[in-house]
């Protein structure tokens, strides 16, 4: 029935075909709409924080290790107070020198430095090594040990961080 009707009115076929074309075009526009907007440039804000000029620093000798993880107790130093580290003069050689091996407190450090001490005995017996375990936490100051090193040592090996 409809087929015969279509044949009976061929212009209707052209009308339908035209409507399909227009609809397709509109559909295409609809589909391409988001793509067109995707190519539009937009402005967004930077999510990153600004450099503050404030750094963390080592804790006081008796400070709790977790103090460094609490902003209320975390010791800090500002860029203005921070002085570039002046390196100490180096030794001419290690011959007959005293070298402190300081375990900073991380797991395995003491055993590692004991093996290093044994290496010196085997390979450089003329170097005197002294093994010390740093008091406090790996992040805290140890002024007594530093004073002892200043008095007795020619050089220091610190380890083992990680």
């Amino acid at each position, binding site marked *: 029935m409809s087929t015969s009707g279509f044949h009976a009115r061929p212009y209707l076929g052209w009308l339908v075909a035209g409507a399909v074309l227009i609809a397709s075009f509109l559909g295409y526009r609809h589909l391409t709409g988001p793509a067109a907007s995707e190519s539009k440039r*937009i402005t967004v804000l*930077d999510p990153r*924080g*600004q450099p503050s000029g404030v*750094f963390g620093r080592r804790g006081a000798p008796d400070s709790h290790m977790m103090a460094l993880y609490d902003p209320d107790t975390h010791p800090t130093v500002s860029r203005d107070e921070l002085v570039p580290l002046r390196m100490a003069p180096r030794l001419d050689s*290690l011959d007959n020198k005293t*070298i402190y091996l300081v375990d900073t407190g991380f*797991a395995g450090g003491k055993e590692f430095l004991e093996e290093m001490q044994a290496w010196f005995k085997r390979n450089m017996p003329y170097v005197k090594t002294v093994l010390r375990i740093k008091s406090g936490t790996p992040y805290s100051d140890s002024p007594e040990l530093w004073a002892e090193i200043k008095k007795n040592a020619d050089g220091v090996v610190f380890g083992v*961080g990680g």
Partner: protein
Amino acid sequence: MEGEYGVPTAPIVTSRFADYVIRDGQSHGMNLRWSFPPYPVAWVPRETLRQYIEGDDPVTGVKLMSEVIDALSKPLTQAETNPQIPVRPKRPRLLEPDTEENLHRMFLTNGWTDGLPIVLPTEERVAEMLSGTDHDPQDVVGRMSVTTHEEMKEYTVEKVAVNAVMAGARPEHLPVILAIASTQHPAMPSSTGSYGSMAVVNGPVAQTIGMNSGVGAMGPFNYANSVIGRAWTLMSINFGDARAGETFMASIGNGLSFTNQCCAENEAKSPWEPFHVRKGFKASESTVSIFRGWNVVTLGLGTSQGLLQRIRTLDSMGTYTFVMDPLAVKTLNAEGFSDPDKLSKWLAEKSGSPFARPEGINFIVVGGETNPIVHTTDYVHYKTASVDKWIPAGGIKADAKLRMPAARECEDGLCFSGIASTAASRE
């Protein structure tokens, strides 16, 4: 040692941390002479350590002991004699305009997200977010770093709003997010042990913004809980400068870090005073409390002996936070522990741990009373911060319709008859 005491030094760090310590040292103006053995050095046989010492530094390819000897005796170079402290440039407020697709790619590939899709912080969206507070957008909220020594990043109210938009939050969530930011605590400090964090909201704001404190409170079933917790993670990445393997060294990482166990305390169901009241705030004040640790042990049932047993078995530095279903608290209440401070004291005394202190043992009441469940954690309570100071004078304008389905309360099976119709309405 080098500068103050004038003693030459040879620092040793495992090669896994080479990049970390070199960059950290240089940012402080220190050109230290590092040596890097292979790793790990902890819990390995002596023979392995001997091989490390007699072998090469895997970073430089030079014999480790030659490096150590050179570190102490080789003459200083020009750069070592005149170290500089680099000044990092200020970042722009606005990024270069680009297409949405390119900006999404840039945020993702630059590591400014948590890997999940974000909402781009356009000027319009950030301006709308800022309607959630009266504070000046350029007010400095704090500074943060996931490391212990690197330069901290400073952030303003506007920067917090930017990260809140990215997390998918709405202006009604901003006061809580600002309160978290004001603590300056990153959710993920760089610990090889992989921290987990928790943010617990108390006071009227929890209800105003529709937070969940009942069934599944720490799960993905509540809009406010999810986006507030996620914003904390994004702030930790973008303000704390968390970059995996560079500044962030958590060996395994922690799945809790995506939304940080963010929830409200179930004050209505708890027989105890709310947590923030026990920390000196009024019940009418709104706060957020920050907790952090490494261990979360689930599926304990709440009796005082049960808590004691878990304290004795959990490897902790003396701090414990119990996250307890109200039913567990009611059990403890019936045992005579109507005052949680009394329970903290009892547990510290009975624990046998030299580190346990009453003030280090805390309790949070969360859950929907499906069982007297207790989560035992080694979390430290770090801070309780005011939310009220960030709420606009006109109050929070919450969109009460923009909510996920609320957790159904089915006490005594009274809502059983409504199950079918409710289930159908959600399909």
